[in-house]
Every structure is written in C-alpha cells, then in structure tokens.
C-alpha cells in the first residue's frame, strides 16, 4: 500500500475512534481532503481488514467493529506522551519479516523509535535463519533504535527487551518468564522470541533492529506440529486473548524506559536482580549449544553482563555468552 494510503487509512481510523456517534461522509471527506467516493473506497478497504461499519442514510458511518491489529491509531492512545518509541508505527497486513523491512528502511533514514508491525509474517525468522511461524493473531513487530549504546553493551538490547515484554505481559496478568537469553515462556513453553540485528560504527552501536514475536491470540494448531509440544500461545495457555495494541503500547513504554537508562549507562546491570527473578533457566540442568560445542551442566546464574554461568561438574563453572539452551531437567524450560 502506498505511503499516502496508509496515512489516510490511519487518519480515517482515528476519526472513527474519536467520534462519539456516526460520522458523516461529508465530514470525513472534508477532514481528509478527499472526495466522498475516495472516502467510501477507503472504508471498503478497512472492511477488508476486519473493520465493520454501520451506514445510515443522511447520518453517516459508525464503526461497530475495530480489529485489534498493531496499527498506529490503535496503539498510540495507550502510549505515554513522552514515549520515544512508537513514532511512527508502520503496520502492514502482511510482511515477509518486520526485521527485514526495518533494516531496509534504516538505509532510508528511518527515525529512532520507529516500530514496524505486521498482521502476519510470511518469512518470519528466528536464530540462524530458522523459520518462525507468524500467523494472524500474533504480535509481530520490530523496534528500531539509533545509537542505543556502546558496542560492549549491545547484548543488553535483547536482554532488556525480554524484560520489557515480561513486565508488560505480567502487568496484564500473563505470567511469562524468560529462558536465557531472551525467549519468552508461558507455563514452561515458548510463547515468544526476540532476535536483534545490529550494525556498529567503531565502538558504538550505530543502529539496531529488535525483532519481537509473540504467539498471542491464535490457536495452538496454527503452529507447526513439530513444535506444538514445546510452544504455546497466550490464548491457548490462558484461555483468553490479550488486547494486542494495548499490549504493544505497554511493551514499548517499558522498553523506552529501559533503553533510556541504557543510554545513560544504567543497562542490564541496573535490573539484574529483577531479570534473574524472572529467569526460569537458573537452577536447572541445561545443555547449551555454543557454536558446534555442547556444554552440559546446572545453570547457576546470569552474570551482570548477561552471560550464563553453568556448573559443568562440582565446583567447575563455565560462562557462556552465546548459544542456545537445548533442554533441561524440567521439561521445556
């Protein structure tokens, strides 16, 4: 969809959100500077996206159903006024990958705080290019930041993103936990993942895309069969859907706070204790793939720099900065 169409669509949605009752076609056409035929076309387009309107002759249109997509006009009312993240919010019905779009737009001057969202991803990717199922009903978004921190603190970006997701969802009654370094678990099963890509300039991070995917409001059956025993969705696990635009706003608000502190030199270390309390990996037997090597042992702690300490034999520990926790004694942690 062209940039202009997106802008008109967002303005139109806003007009309906702000209206107390029906809005006349004439008023809409005046407000948007478009012909009434053009307004009607945009309304038809919104219906394709899940909106429903009641049209009464001589009175106008009234929105009777507003879908909970991650669109700017639906997210923004829930953002704190001083939030630096969430402007603009670029939604599309379908994208190959929100990280990919953000990286492309980064070359064209995408501003700090922009968020790229999608109704679905057709080429969602996890670590090492593994496919990440991203059907409708999930939350698929990428936060774009410029000059967030020094390169040596870059891992904080993903650790803090996991914390922001936990804070926001837990405040909404969804008891998620973190699997080191940044998977989001619900009842011990994976319900979210974070993948960050950065470009550095000398000792500084020039820009970063923080891709976050959450299995929110869709049935477990939408996920590939081979991961259904280890993955879950918020809807499946809690029996109720979450308000996605509101949840996104809350995540962005938390993340904004954490990233501002990071810029001021108070990154992961400053929230270390809170993070550890949310990390379900600690205290369990794990096997971590570090490159081609496997490190087995008891996950003892997470260091203030984010690395995982594994006790490989009594009294012998190994600290890993990279890698993936493959399994543990308690299922799915």
């Amino acid at each position, binding site marked *: 969809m062209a940039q202009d169409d997106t802008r008109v669509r967002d303005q139109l949605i806003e007009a309906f959100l702000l209206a107390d009752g029906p809005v006349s076609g004439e008023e809409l056409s005046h407000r948007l500077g478009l012909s009434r035929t053009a307004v009607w076309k945009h309304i038809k387009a919104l219906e394709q996206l899940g909106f429903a309107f009641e049209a009464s002759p001589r009175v106008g249109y009234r929105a009777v159903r507003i879908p909970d997509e991650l669109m700017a006009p639906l997210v923004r009312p829930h953002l704190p006024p001083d939030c630096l993240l969430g402007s603009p919010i670029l939604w599309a019905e379908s994208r190959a990958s929100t990280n990919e779009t953000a990286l492309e737009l980064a070359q064209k001057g995408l501003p700090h705080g922009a968020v790229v969202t999608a109704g679905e991803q057709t080429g969602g990717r996890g670590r*090492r290019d593994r496919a990440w199922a991203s059907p409708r009903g999930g939350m698929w978004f990428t936060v774009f930041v410029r000059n967030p921190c020094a390169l040596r603190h*870059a891992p904080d970006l993903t650790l803090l993103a996991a914390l922001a997701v936990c804070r926001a969802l837990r405040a909404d009654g969804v008891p998620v936990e973190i699997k080191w370094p940044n998977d989001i678990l619900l009842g011990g099963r994976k319900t979210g993942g974070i993948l960050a890509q950065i470009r*550095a300039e*000398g*000792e500084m991070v020039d820009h970063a895309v923080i891709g976050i995917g959450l299995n929110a409001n869709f049935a477990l059956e939408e996920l590939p069969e081979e991961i259904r025993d280890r993955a879950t969705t918020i809807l499946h696990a809690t029996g109720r859907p979450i308000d996605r635009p509101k949840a996104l706003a809350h995540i962005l608000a938390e993340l904004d706070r954490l990233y501002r502190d990071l810029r001021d030199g108070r990154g992961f*270390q400053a929230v*270390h204790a809170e993070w550890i309390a949310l990390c379900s990996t600690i205290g369990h037997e794990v096997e971590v793939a570090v490159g*081609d090597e496997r490190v087995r042992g008891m996950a003892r702690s997470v*260091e203030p720099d984010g690395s995982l300490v594994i006790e490989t034999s009594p009294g012998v520990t190994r600290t890993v900065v*990279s890698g993936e926790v493959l399994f543990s004694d308690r299922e799915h942690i």
Partner: protein
Amino acid sequence: MLTMEEIRELIRLLDDSTLTELELEFEDGKVRLAKRAEVVSYAVPQVAMPVAQAAPAPAAQAAQPTANAAPAAVEDPALHVITSPMVGTFYRAPAPDAPPFVDVGSQIGPKTVVCIIEAMKLMNEIEAEVSGEIVEVLAENGQLVEYGQPLFKVRRT
C-alpha cells in the same frame, strides 16, 4: 589508608550494588575498584593496537578488555586484519545452509558484510570497513571468538 578489612568491606558493597566502579580519594592516596570487564585502567599497560584498527576513542573509562587478544602487528602495510569487536560466536554465513558472506578471493568494499558475531541472540553484522580482497579466513565457522581476535586478512586495494 584503608585496612585490608575495610577494602574487603568495600568490595562486598560494590558486589551487592549495581555500580560498576567505585573510586575513593583520601589525603594519602586513593582506591579504585571496578567490576569484571571494567579493567582498572592504570593497571593495564598500553597495548599498541594495529594501525588499521584505529577506531574512534572509546568512552573514557572503557579500558580495552582482554588486551592479550589483540592481533600481532601485520608486517605488510597492504595487509589489513579484520578483528572481532566483541566476544561471541563467529558465523561466516547468514544461515547454516547459505553460502558464506565472503571467501578467500572475495572482493570487498567498506560496507560489505563479512560475517556475523552473535552474543545472546544479538547478531552483529560485521562490515569490512576497508576495500580489498580477502586473502585468508582466520577463524572457524561456529567458533567462539574473543574481543580483538583476528577474523580475516585483507589485501587492500
């Protein structure tokens, strides 16, 4: 000056706090304590970094960690060594079954991505920062690399 017991107490306080360093000045001297990678700067001898690594000056307190990982000086001035800017896993390709970003003989420009270093699911796409030809790959795919570890040798053009 402080007694050993007082210093131990300070260390315990620092350990339990979110501070990364603590500096106290007394009439007869000063004590500076810093955590982990924040190497106490005056204790570290200046290490000559290779010329090509002339990165912008890091923040004042950012003493270079693991100075011993710095590569040996390259003798041929046309040769440049691309080093790892961080600790992490070295990946030569964007995906396990994808061709490598670059190989021996590849022509590169400053913006060419030569590899990915991963730490905690953060993918750092490393740009060459020089123009030339890759003459040697110095690290194994999937290997853990240290800060400053040589990754590629480049003949500049």
